[in-house]
């Protein structure tokens, strides 16, 4: 038994993204960030793990119903020599289809400690409503 035999949490290997078509300006490797998606009556929330991404290197784009999230991560300095490698350095790329039922102007984003949180408010007309029953 190794010292590390009782772990409750495991690493998900980074999944490389193919960016050969349509994105000629991007160079380097991109990985799919792990994402949680949850919803409430008011909004859909996307939470993405993007360690190493700064606000300046994050690009969020919504067009034609597709939300594209791209984060770039700088390479390690060239004078650093790898002694042990378990993760690869690269950017993050993920796309989500956004339904018409999202209030697109109301989308907000927050990046903190390598975690991106996107809140997509549901459009007013699809929010569940309590119907009052009047007793006649």
């Amino acid at each position, binding site marked *: 038994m190794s*010292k*590390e035999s009782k*772990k*409750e*949490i*495991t*690493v*998900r*290997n980074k999944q490389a993204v193919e960016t050969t078509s349509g994105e000629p300006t991007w160079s380097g490797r991109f990985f799919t960030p*792990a*994402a*949680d*998606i*949850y*919803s*409430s*009556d008011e909004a*859909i*929330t996307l*939470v993405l*793990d*993007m*360690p*190493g*991404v*700064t606000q300046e290197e994050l690009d969020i784009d919504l067009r034609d119903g597709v939300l594209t999230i791209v984060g770039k991560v700088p390479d*390690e*300095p060239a*004078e*650093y*020599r*790898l*002694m*042990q*490698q*378990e*993760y*690869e350095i690269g950017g993050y790329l993920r796309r989500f289809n956004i339904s018409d039922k999202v209030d697109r102007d109301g989308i907000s984003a927050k990046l*903190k*400690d*390598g*975690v991106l949180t996107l809140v997509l408010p549901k459009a007013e007309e699809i929010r569940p409503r309590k119907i009052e029953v009047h007793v006649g």
Partner: protein
Amino acid sequence: MWRWNTSVFDDLLRMQREMEQLHRSLSSAVGPRVYPAINIYDSPEGYRLRAELPGIDPASLDITVTRNEVVLKGERTLPELEENSHYHRRERDHGKFSRAFAMPDNIDPDAVLARYEHGVLDVLLPRLPEAQPRKVAITS
């Protein structure tokens, strides 16, 4: 003749590189591994251990360093959802972790610096002064 030999050698080298790349991509597809994923570098300032730990409270991290070992412990917790919310997709992991790394026996534990930035932990492990390379002057 020599040119021909050289190009064959180049081809073999290229094939070898491709095989190594394939091997790396296959071995990295073998899951699950111990959390968090780390890289260790040898830098001019000392060894550097980096770990991808997005969304961690740095106060929950416990880093212990001796001359030849680094132990990293912590817990990643995700906030509870509000009552009327529910998950559609859950890919982000949470839980406790503890890892130990054997290092060359020349770390100066008193000089260690740890930084947490943009979800990446960076632990700088300076080498003990006597272990640093010294330029030797030759007198004639």
